[in-house]
């Protein structure tokens, strides 16, 4: 880099070089799940390819005999899969950079169903689909049944131990500026087969557009009314956070719903906030109960963002949070108090929990896995300290999970494969690095399933899960592209000893994993794979969404349901009931 020594300014050559330098860094990020790739766009606008693919799937699916034959073949193949390379061992990790299929191997689609041994428990798994609804996957048949509710993506669903489901479902209506003006929340019950068993109206919310901008076009297209639904850990209550614009303020609050009968246990209104002043506009997002911070006390996070000028194509944005504590006793949510010391913890408040002697912690993420801040606060909300954990860029996920006893927080970087454990009481942190991905091993026999691992993806929903006994942490790894042409891919499921943070092993990917969960008894680990791509993340239109079930004891594959449709599926929680 040269600068004209005779001038206070920069010469043209220097500027040209600077432009080249900055443009060099504009490299394509990993592809997001919610931003369909180019093939999906072709497919959506022109159905020809999809029709052709579906015809192929249809022929396969309609032939019962073919399915039987496939299962038989699959069982034979499974012998190869589950046979360890040495007695009693899973494939050993390699010292190489990742799994590699034979050169020129072309990935083929995963089978509709591959089962070894007993059927998994649970055999029915409820998933959230890419479009925001829910679907039941029957792992005994490899089939999918959905959508369940037909409501908006703001809905949340909880599965009971008997397989029945309760949904706090959100329906949107009205449309001003491309955004709904009204939402209605209802409690819907479904039996274990997914049949609607009853519906109870809960509440309606209506927001109004900003009258200051009635005569101008606002490219931001701000929301007028928002909701955020969650459930209490014990499954007794549902929390419906809401916010609505009533210029010049936003009203917001939380409605507590008794899930047993659909009655409203309590309502908590939070302090109003302005919708922006002068040339600034502000959207107050729906508050969310982030966690219990003591017995009888919860932490509520209410995000907001501002932009200015309102009609600009390129406004300046700011993002922050209002954080409150509130009492919660037998469903009675009350006494909200602002916690100013937590408001700037990070872009999103993802979790909160208790510390000894009335203190508490708040976990915030900025840029997904980019930066996690665990802020520890005293009983008087005074700052005890921050633990900061930086991760890889461009990975949209909640990288955190809490240990079963609530004393530790795990933070996972899916790209660098580093797991960090934070002792929440002391703030001490310890890190462990995942071992190199395993060779193809026995799966090499099915090398056509395992496209050569190549690159990275950046959208995970449920990137890590802690075993019920707290002894292990399972985490999904993704691979950064070796160069700018590489596509995204999975590096498999990394298994860590939760005590030592020593990496135990890594289970190689059968698909491009996007979500992971553990069975209630801890014996099985479930990994959901993306449709439209293979394990290496390469576009592959014939590959549908999939679920692979691993035996937690040795990493052998117990089941693959490989043809679950074209919508990406993710688990509702990291613990399957």
């Amino acid at each position, binding site marked *: 880099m040269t600068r004209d020594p005779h001038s206070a300014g920069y010469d043209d050559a220097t500027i040209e070089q600077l432009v080249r330098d900055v443009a060099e860094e504009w490299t394509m990020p990993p592809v997001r799940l919610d931003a369909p790739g180019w093939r999906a766009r072709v497919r959506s606008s022109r159905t020809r390819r999809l029709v052709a693919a579906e015809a192929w799937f249809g022929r396969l699916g309609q032939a019962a005999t073919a399915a039987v034959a496939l299962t038989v073949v699959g069982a034979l193949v499974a012998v190869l899969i589950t046979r360890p390379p040495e007695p009693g061992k899973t494939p050993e990790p390699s010292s190489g950079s990742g799994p590699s299929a034979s050169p020129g191997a072309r990935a083929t689609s995963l089978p509709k169903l591959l089962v070894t041994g007993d059927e998994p428990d649970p055999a029915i798994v409820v998933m959230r689909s890419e479009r925001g609804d829910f679907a039941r996957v029957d792992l005994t048949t490899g089939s999918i049944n959905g959508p369940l509710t037909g409501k908006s993506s703001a809905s949340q669903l909880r599965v009971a131990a008997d397989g029945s489901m309760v949904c706090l479902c959100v329906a949107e209506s009205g449309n001003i500026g491309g955004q709904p003006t009204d939402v209605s929340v209802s409690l819907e019950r479904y039996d274990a087969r997914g049949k609607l068993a009853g519906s109870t109206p809960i509440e309606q919310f209506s927001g109004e557009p900003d009258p200051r901008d009635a005569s101008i076009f606002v490219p931001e297209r701000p929301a007028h009314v928002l909701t955020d639904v969650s459930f209490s850990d014990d499954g007794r209550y549902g929390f419906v956070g809401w916010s609505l614009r009533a210029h010049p303020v936003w009203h917001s609050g939380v409605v507590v719903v008794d899930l047993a009968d659909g009655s409203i246990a309590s309502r908590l209104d939070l302090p109003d906030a302005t919708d922006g002043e002068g040339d600034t506009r502000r959207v107050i997002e729906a508050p969310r109960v982030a966690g219990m911070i003591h017995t009888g006390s919860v932490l509520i996070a209410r995000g907001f963002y501002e932009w200015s000028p309102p009609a600009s194509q390129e406004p300046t944005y700011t993002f922050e949070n209002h954080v409150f504590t509130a009492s919660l006793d037998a469903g009675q949510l009350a006494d909200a108090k602002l916690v100013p010391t937590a408001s700037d913890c*990070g872009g999103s408040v993802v979790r909160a929990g208790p510390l000894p002697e009335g203190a508490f912690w708040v976990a915030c993420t900025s840029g997904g896995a980019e930066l996690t801040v665990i802020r520890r606060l005293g009983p008087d909300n005074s700052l005890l300290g921050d633990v900061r954990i930086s991760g890889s860029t461009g990975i949209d996920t909640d990288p955190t999970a809490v240990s079963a006893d609530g004393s530790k927080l795990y933070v996972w970087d899916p790209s660098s494969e580093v797991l960090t454990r934070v002792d929440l009481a002391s703030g001490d942190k310890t890190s462990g690095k995942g071992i190199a991905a395993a060779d193809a091993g026995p799966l090499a026999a099915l090398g056509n399933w395992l496209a050569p691992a190549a690159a990275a993806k950046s959208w995970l929903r449920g990137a890590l899960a802690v075993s019920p006994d707290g002894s292990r942490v399972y985490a999904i790894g993704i691979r950064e592209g070796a160069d700018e042409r590489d596509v995204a891919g999975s590096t498999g499921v990394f298994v860590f000893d939760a005590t030592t943070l020593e990496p135990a092993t890594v289970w190689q990917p059968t698909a491009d994993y996007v979500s992971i969960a553990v069975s209630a008894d801890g014996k099985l680990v479930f990994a959901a794979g993306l449709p439209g791509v293979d394990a290496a993340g390469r576009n592959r239109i014939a590959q549908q969404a999939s679920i692979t079930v691993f035996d937690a004891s040795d990493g052998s594959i117990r089941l693959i349901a490989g043809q679950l449709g074209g919508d990406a599926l993710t688990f509702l929680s990291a613990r399957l009931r």
Partner: protein
Amino acid sequence: MIESERDRAADQAYRDHANDVYRVAYGILRDPDDALDATHETFARAWERWDQYDRQRPLKGWLHGIVVHLALDQLRRRRVRRLALPVLGRAATSLERTGQPDPADEVTRRQAVEHALDGLRPEVRATLVLRHYYGYDYAQIGTFLGISSGTVGSTLSRAHAAIRRRLEADDPAVAALDAEGAMPSAAPATSATAARRGTSTEPPEVLP
């Protein structure tokens, strides 16, 4: 061309040129999500129009022509709120560099150029990238943008002047930033949120 051949050709084009398409899209849109969106849209359009591609001409140029049109059109049609992950990333990175002096002046100069580019019209940014990074001649750039070669030249001249002004204006601020150095991690005002603002704002007003 039968469909399978077109598929293979489009796949190869994506592998070879996706990042080049993305770079131009980002230069225009200045948003990673939007740029990625435009990149995918470009290849979808290219697939649909594959028979129109003149194989005597560089494929990258053809794709650049599509993406310039799409990105500018996208700007005209809408602007979507985004989380701006890379922006957060830069904030996080800077916070993690606590106590470390800025390793190179180039970094801060590049940031100044990024800021300067933010202040330019999208067509001007496109001109800069197409000319200085990809080396297209004025006529080709004019074809992409629907303007004359002379306009391309004058656009570049004015863009250089704007960047120059910004670089010179930003020098003192950059120096001040360097001098600030570390921010203690325990200080509540050092959040990524605060850092990513770029400009300071008053604390949110919460009405009673």
